[in-house]
């Protein structure tokens, strides 16, 4: 081990003493050559990829209530009854209605409020609103049913 370390030390010393004059100019000679290439690439080459946001990115999805800027209110029974099952009166879940988390929570809160104020039935849909247009299809949920 000692011999090895001595050898390395001697070589290094010799190299540094001699190489100061011969090796260093080579190093400097390489450096400007590289920088010149880079400069030409950035200024002249138009085929180089540019850093821009993805132009093919789709618009972010929005739920139906956010799109039309509607805040559900407990007196707006006609709107709320569209989120209710006509058979059992249950409030459809987020995987069926396709609403965002906040709006679904607002809708559920408003429906429960309306039911407490006797504005809305709890076990069926109001007969006046049975023919209303469907906002979503409960047979085709966005995510699969839990059951």
């Amino acid at each position, binding site marked *: 081990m000692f011999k090895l370390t001595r050898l390395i030390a001697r070589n290094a010393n010799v190299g540094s003493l001699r190489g100061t004059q011969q090796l260093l100019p080579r190093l400097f000679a390489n450096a400007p050559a590289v920088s010149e290439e880079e400069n030409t690439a950035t200024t002249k080459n138009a085929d180089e990829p540019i850093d821009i946001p993805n132009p093919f990115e789709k618009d972010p*999805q929005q739920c139906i209530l956010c799109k039309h800027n509607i805040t559900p209110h407990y*007196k707006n029974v006609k709107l709320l009854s569209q989120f209710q099952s006509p058979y059992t009166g249950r409030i459809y879940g987020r995987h069926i209605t396709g609403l965002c*988390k906040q709006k679904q929570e607002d809708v559920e809160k408003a429906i429960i409020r309306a039911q407490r104020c*006797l504005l809305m*039935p709890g*076990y069926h849909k109001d007969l006046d609103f049975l023919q209303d247009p469907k906002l979503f299809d409960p047979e085709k949920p966005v995510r699969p049913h839990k059951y």
Partner: protein
Amino acid sequence: MPSYELALVLRQLPRPELISVIKRTAEAIFDKGGIIRKFENLGTRALPHKVSEHGVVHREATHFTIIFDSAPTKLSDLREEFGRDIDIIRRNIFKLEEPEEHKCTLHEEMLPPSYRKDVQEIIDIAKRKQKPKYNYNSGLDYYPFQK
């Protein structure tokens, strides 16, 4: 004083008596130091289901809302007072709130589970809860002795 909305469901009554009921409730609010901002008549219609209140079964009712300002400490007193009124079937007091500005989060919710923030948090919790396994330092990837 914060604003509140009193949603009343009143017994089916002839017009002069209905007016006297509303006057009574309004005066009760004034007596507790409240201010009335608005009256709103939602009309008489059949209830979604029959309601038994004060020993009578109701099938039709008048919906009425009063928007008022009052001290929050007086609300329970008001509620109790309206509860004693025979002509009032239901009374609910809700706080009036401005709808908050909200950005739709549906796009983030529809991403695959591993890209969703809430799922990533759950995975982190599970990783943190994993028990450290004892390391035998034998350099083998199996236990060399019979266990």
